[in-house]
Structures are given as C-alpha cells and as structure tokens.
C-alpha cells in the first residue's frame, strides 16, 4: 500500500491506490433488470437477496447496495407496468442480510426529505451495530411533492433548497453518531433548529466498530459534487468511461481539497454494467440478447410516451419516431428523476432528427438512449480485466458499482471469471482487509467533531 503512505505524506496530492473494489447495486426498480428470461428470479423473495449477497461476498465485493424509491413510478397517470418494481425497505432487508454475511458492506439508499434526522440516524446506527460495523448510507435528496403524498409532511422543500437541507440533515446525523463520549456513554445532547425541522435528542447508541456508517452520495450536479466533497466518503458517480472518469476524478479532487479535506478523502465508484463471456464475439452476441430483453417493443413506446405525454400505441415500434407533437410542456417527476423537467417539444424535434439521421426505428432509438452505453463494459473476461487494470493504474476510479441485469445469478460470471483475472493482474483484493466496511474500503476513521464535544452543542441554523 505504497500509495496510502504517499497520500499520507502529502495530503494535498491525490495518490492512486492501484486497486479496484466492487459493489453490487440491487436496484429493484429499473428497466435494466431482465424479468422475461427463464433464469429471471424473484425480486422480493429473501432467497434472491441471500444468493446475490453471498455471491458478492465470495467475490470479495466491498459493498451490497439497495435502492429506494418512495412512490411507485407512473406512466400516463397509472403505475408503470413494464419494468421490475416492488422492493423491500432497504435497512430491514440489510439487517437480515447481516445475519448471513460476515464482511461485505451493507448500503441503504435513504432519503433526507421524507425521514426525520434523529430517527434515520438511529436506524442507521442500529444497522451499523447489528452488522458489526458494515453499514453505509447512500444519501439521496428527492424533493418533489408527488413523492411527498405518501408522508406526514408532503412537499415542503423547494428543489433549490434540497442540498442545503440535506447538508443540515447529514451534519445533524453526524453529531448524533458522535454523541457518545466513550463506548459506554454518556451521550451528549444534540439540538438542531433549522428552517425545515427541529431536532432535540439524547442519542441512544454508541459508536460502532467502524465509528459511524460510511456515507455514499450520488448527485452529479456541481452542488451535488460539492456536497459529496464536504460530507461523503464515497461518490457513486455516473462516469465509468476512462477519459470521463479521469476528468471526474480531477474535478472531485479539486473540490475535496477546496472543502479542506485530503485529496484521497472521497472515493469514486461509478455505476456500471458488465456483459462478459469467454470471447469478445460471444460477449457481443450476449449483449444483443440482453438489450432485446431490456427494451422490448412495449418499453420502447412507453419510453417515448413519457416525453410525448400521450398514448402512442398505434405506432409501430419498428417504424420511425412519431410525427405528432408532445402534448406536455415539461415531463413530470412521476417516472423518476431521470425524466424530470425535460422540455418535451424541443426534445421531440431533436430526437426525430437524430433518429432519421442514423436510420433508427423507435425500438433501436430507445435502446440506444437507455442502454447505459457509457456504463457498460462488454467483452471477454481477459479483455475487460486488461481495461479495468488501466483504471486502477491511473487511479481513475476506486472501483465499480455493478448493476446486475439478472437476479439472482447476475454476478456469477463476474465472480467466477472476472475477479480471478483482476486478481492475477494485482488490481483486486485477494482477501478482506478487515470486518468493517471502513477498513475494507481503506477509509480513515473519522475524528470526533468539536461540536459534539461541547456540552449541549451550539444550536445551529440552516
């Protein structure tokens, strides 16, 4: 670990670790998960979760992620029918998975808007203790009132305020986790009086074996990146291609230093998908099969209907894009964040031109738009391993967060074939470094904050 010692010697210079870590992201709601194949298993049975997490642990994965969405996505005013949907509460499922695993990190995606800070901080601390120091929180900041319709407090937050709100939330959570003076207590009182909520609590739980839950964050806007640079341990980025990944690293290191933290303080794990086989040719053929099952004719039309705001069932999925115009001005949030706020008419014009230009049918066009092209690594085990080794060598990323396209067997190829190739190249762990997530990621233990040490703590305004 020469890189770690050099990072310590000059904390303002980024030093690549030379290695990669894998996480698995079991999204539970998305069009990337194939449910039409004979091998497609249950999305909700505990056995699917057990199988995936135990395969990941056999492959020395650092983390197992669960997604969260607090309202079902809709399509033209009704629940969206064409993709996998319906998933357990992340922390409840992870608490159960803690019982059948020993080393892998357990990451819960949890929302800062529709949770109370004291309650969420307590539940995350619980998961951290129950799992022996393996819990993490993937911080998300949904703000829309449409999701708020499922909660005591509906839509109370302006989009513009979401990071300000999230930051006050996270700082309050950190103070709660910092509050026990020693592992035996006593706890310091934590108060926060902000624009959006008030917290006044004597925290109940001691620090865990990894001090406190590891923090992941996924926003890619400049505010999101700055938020991660100030608060997070790992950023779950959207830039897995080598050149873009290097740019992103450079940008994030600058922001991290500007936030007063060491250059290596925030790790990067982009979202990714792997389509692998023994040869490049077989992998390409497999990719065709995967794509055809991810985006069928109905999904292709439904995708366009989101932007057109009207039924397009009369159109041939294998024909050109619809000549009629969208009936909506702006796409709404009901389909999920990726669709929110696009200017519909302008987009339709642009897409029609693009599809005509490239000679693409509706189905081909949508497949190209949605196939996570940037996020997919396709090829033979050895070719992909060679490519990933390059990421490790230059320090473009710290690892990859892999979304499997099959549940529950989607990691088998990766663990059985890709991981050994990476190990041979010396860029992937050959054992778990420790039993906590923080140890396994090589993250520094947090220093207890001064705020918490001050009795009663200052009342903060956000």
């Amino acid at each position, binding site marked *: 670990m020469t890189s770690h010692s050099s990072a310590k010697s000059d904390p303002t210079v980024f030093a690549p670790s030379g290695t990669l870590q894998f996480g698995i992201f079991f999204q539970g709601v998305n069009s990337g998960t194939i449910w039409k194949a004979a091998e497609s298993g249950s999305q909700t049975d505990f056995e699917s979760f057990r199988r995936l997490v135990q395969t990941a642990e056999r492959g020395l994965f650092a983390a197992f992620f669960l997604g969260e969405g607090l309202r079902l996505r809709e399509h033209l005013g009704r629940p969206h029918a064409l993709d996998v949907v319906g998933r357990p*509460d992340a922390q*409840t499922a992870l608490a159960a998975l803690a019982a059948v695993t020993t080393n892998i990190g357990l990451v819960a995606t949890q929302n800062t808007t529709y949770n109370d800070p004291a*309650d969420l901080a307590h539940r995350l601390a619980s998961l951290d203790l129950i799992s022996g120091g393996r819990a993490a929180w993937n911080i998300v900041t949904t703000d829309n009132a449409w999701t708020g319709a499922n909660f005591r407090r509906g839509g109370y937050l302006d989009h513009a305020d979401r990071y300000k709100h999230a930051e006050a939330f996270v700082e309050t959570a950190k103070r709660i986790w910092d509050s026990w003076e020693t592992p035996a207590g006593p706890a310091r009182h934590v108060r926060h009086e902000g624009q959006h909520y008030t917290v006044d609590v004597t925290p109940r739980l001691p620090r865990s074996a990894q001090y406190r839950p590891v923090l992941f964050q996924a926003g890619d806007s400049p505010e999101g990146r700055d938020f991660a640079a100030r608060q997070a341990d790992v950023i779950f980025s959207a830039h897995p291609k080598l050149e873009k990944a290097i740019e992103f690293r450079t940008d994030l290191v600058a922001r991290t230093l500007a936030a007063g933290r060491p250059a290596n303080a925030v790790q990067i794990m982009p979202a990714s998908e792997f389509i692998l086989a023994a040869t490049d040719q077989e992998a390409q053929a497999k990719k065709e099969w995967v794509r055809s099952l991810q985006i069928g004719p109905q999904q292709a039309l439904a995708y366009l209907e989101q932007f057109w705001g009207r039924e397009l069932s009369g159109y041939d999925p294998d024909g050109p894009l619809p000549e009629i115009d969208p009936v909506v001005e702006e796409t709404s949030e009901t389909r999920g964040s990726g669709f929110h706020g696009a200017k519909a008419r302008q987009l339709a014009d642009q897409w029609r031109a693009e599809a005509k230009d490239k000679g693409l049918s509706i189905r081909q066009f949508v497949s190209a738009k949605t196939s996570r092209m940037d996020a997919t690594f396709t090829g033979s085990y050895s070719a992909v391993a060679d490519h990933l080794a390059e990421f490790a060598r230059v320090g473009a990323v710290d690892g990859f967060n892999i979304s499997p396209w099959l549940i529950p067997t989607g990691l088998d190829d990766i663990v059985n074939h890709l991981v050994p190739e990476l190990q041979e190249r010396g860029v992937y762990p050959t054992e778990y470094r420790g039993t906590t997530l923080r140890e396994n990621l090589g993250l520094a233990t947090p220093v207890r904050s001064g705020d918490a040490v001050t009795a009663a703590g200052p009342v903060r305004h956000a």
Partner: protein
Amino acid sequence: MSTAATARPGFLAIELDGAGWDGAGSGTLAAAVLAVESAGFHVATFKDAPEAGRANALQRAAFAGPVTRSIALVPEVDTVYTEPFHVSTQLASLDYVSGGRAGWIATATESPAAAAAVGRRSVTGEGLAKEASAAIEVSRRLWDSWEDDAVIRDVATGRYIDVDKLHYVDFTAPEEAGPGYSIKGPSIIPRPLQGQLPVIAPLGLLGSGLVDDAAVDAVLVTAPTPELLTAEVRDARSRLRTGVAIIAELDVVLDSRGLAAADRPAPADSGRALFTGSAAGLAALLAPILAVADGVRLHPASFDVELDELSRVVLPELRRSGALRAPLQDATFRDLLGLDRPASRYADAAATAIAAAE
C-alpha cells in the same frame, strides 16, 4: 377458532429485552433468539423503548429472520412519531425476510422526548390511541394495495405487473392529535407473505373512538398480580369481538443457579403481574392461564438466568401436561394465531365470489 373458550393448548411468547444490543451485538442476538426457539417458545418479541444502548427493534427482528425457522418475530413499533408509510414498508419487509413469521406490536406511549426528537408536539391522552388507530389502518390498506397476483410477468404483453391489481389507498388521518396527514399509496413492496401481518396492541389502546377491536388480531392483557390474570383475560374476552387473541403478560423471577428468586434483585415495576418463585411453581401458575388465554408472554428478569429454568423445567412440564402446544414447523404467525390468510380488501368482489363458489 383459536380464541373460543379455547380448547386447544396455548402458546408462549418471550420478550428478548435488550438481547443483542450490547456491542457484541449480532452474536448475542443470534444466540438469544436461537436459544428461545430451541427451548420451544412460539414467539419472540423485541422491545423498542427509548433506552440507551437499545438498537432498533424491527431491525433486530429482521436480523433474527434468517437465523431461525419456526419462531414468530414480533417487534414493537411506535405509531405516534414514526412515518406510517415507512413503518408499513418495513413491517412488510420483515415478513419477507422471516418467511411469513412477522407480527407487529403497535405502541403509542406518551413521550415528550420522542416528540422533541422529531420536532413535533407531544401527543397525550386519547390522541395516542387515535394516532395508533390511524397508523394501523393505513398500514393495513398499504399491505392490501398490491393484490396477491399483481406481479404477472406476462411476456406476451410485456407487462411485469397488472396495474389493475395495484390500488391507491387515499388515506386521510383525522386531525385529532396533530396536523393530520394523508397517504396516497400504493405500497412500494408487494403484498406481505401473510397478506396481513398480525397486529397486536396493548388492551389499553382499545375502546370506543380509540383503536377498534376489528383493527387488531391480538391484545396484550396485564393484571396487578398473577392470580388476577385469569380474571382479566376472561374480562377482556367478554368485551372483545370473537377472534381477537388474548395474550397475558407476566414478569418472572425464578429460583435459579442456587439463588432463591426472593433473594435476587427485584425487577423495576413494569405495571405487569410479577411471579417470583420456583420453575415448578411457574408451570403450575401458567397451566390454568394458558387454558383461558391464547398465549402468555413472559418477561424474564434476567434473560440468561431465567432461560435456563424455562427451557429445562417450565416448557417441558407445560408440554407434558398438554397446556402448551408443540412449536409449529413451516408455519406463519397467522397460522399460530389460527387466522386465515385474508383476501386483499381491494380484490375484485366478483372474482372473490367466484373463487368462493368453486
């Protein structure tokens, strides 16, 4: 029916108290829950009192899910200062990770500290039961909001779910205690394995304008002394609808490890009946209570110490005498309570009628 003047033997529940939270954490919890399962207890409950060191009850129950095979796992979950939508999803998830062995002790306790933690006004008096009533109702609606066969995986039409089998719950909580709230639905998880998790409430939350007895599957009944428990159980039974299971609550301190119970430190007053004495004496006390109640929940003064005697003497004696039923294998918590698996309230009435006629 389980709850008729009860011909069949009763079941035993045990409160795991703080087992599992003490830093050694998961190891202790796994050992505790396995020990009570192998002793023959039918139900383990997980307390969620706001005490230092106590991890979230529902998560401890979830951890116990894959570790155990037959015991029902029933956490306390507050209804007043929690988000009902999260609570519903978490409990449904507990049912999945436990293979249909989950239940819910719905609590509503006056607590200015719990109110301050989430920045809300403290709820008192009847407001507590009204919050509980609303939270139970919305959870039940959300559990029904996906019909059982909503996931169709129909390759021909490209539909993963049948949207006609998902339902908005459109619940509005009355403005009794706070600002009120409304919940749209549907749930974000399919219907729980049991359809509806059994809901248990302390008897004190039930009443006119409070929690309706139709909303619960079981009640917890206490008495000032062990001798009065049978009468309290009979009284509760006479006032509640047929079908509500009655679970009697009892604190226990036993002669154990060479120490007389009377010489051991008395537990803090819990408001429950307290038995102090020998294991044989406890078995003799429990047999007639189990004949009138559906079950008894024991609160051991010291988990490890009492469990020795309970597993070595009390449970074997009760089984031998026929007062205690054998543990159910591969059964749901509803099965233990003698409850059928209900159809979703949103299921097509015509389809239900056809199914019934077949």
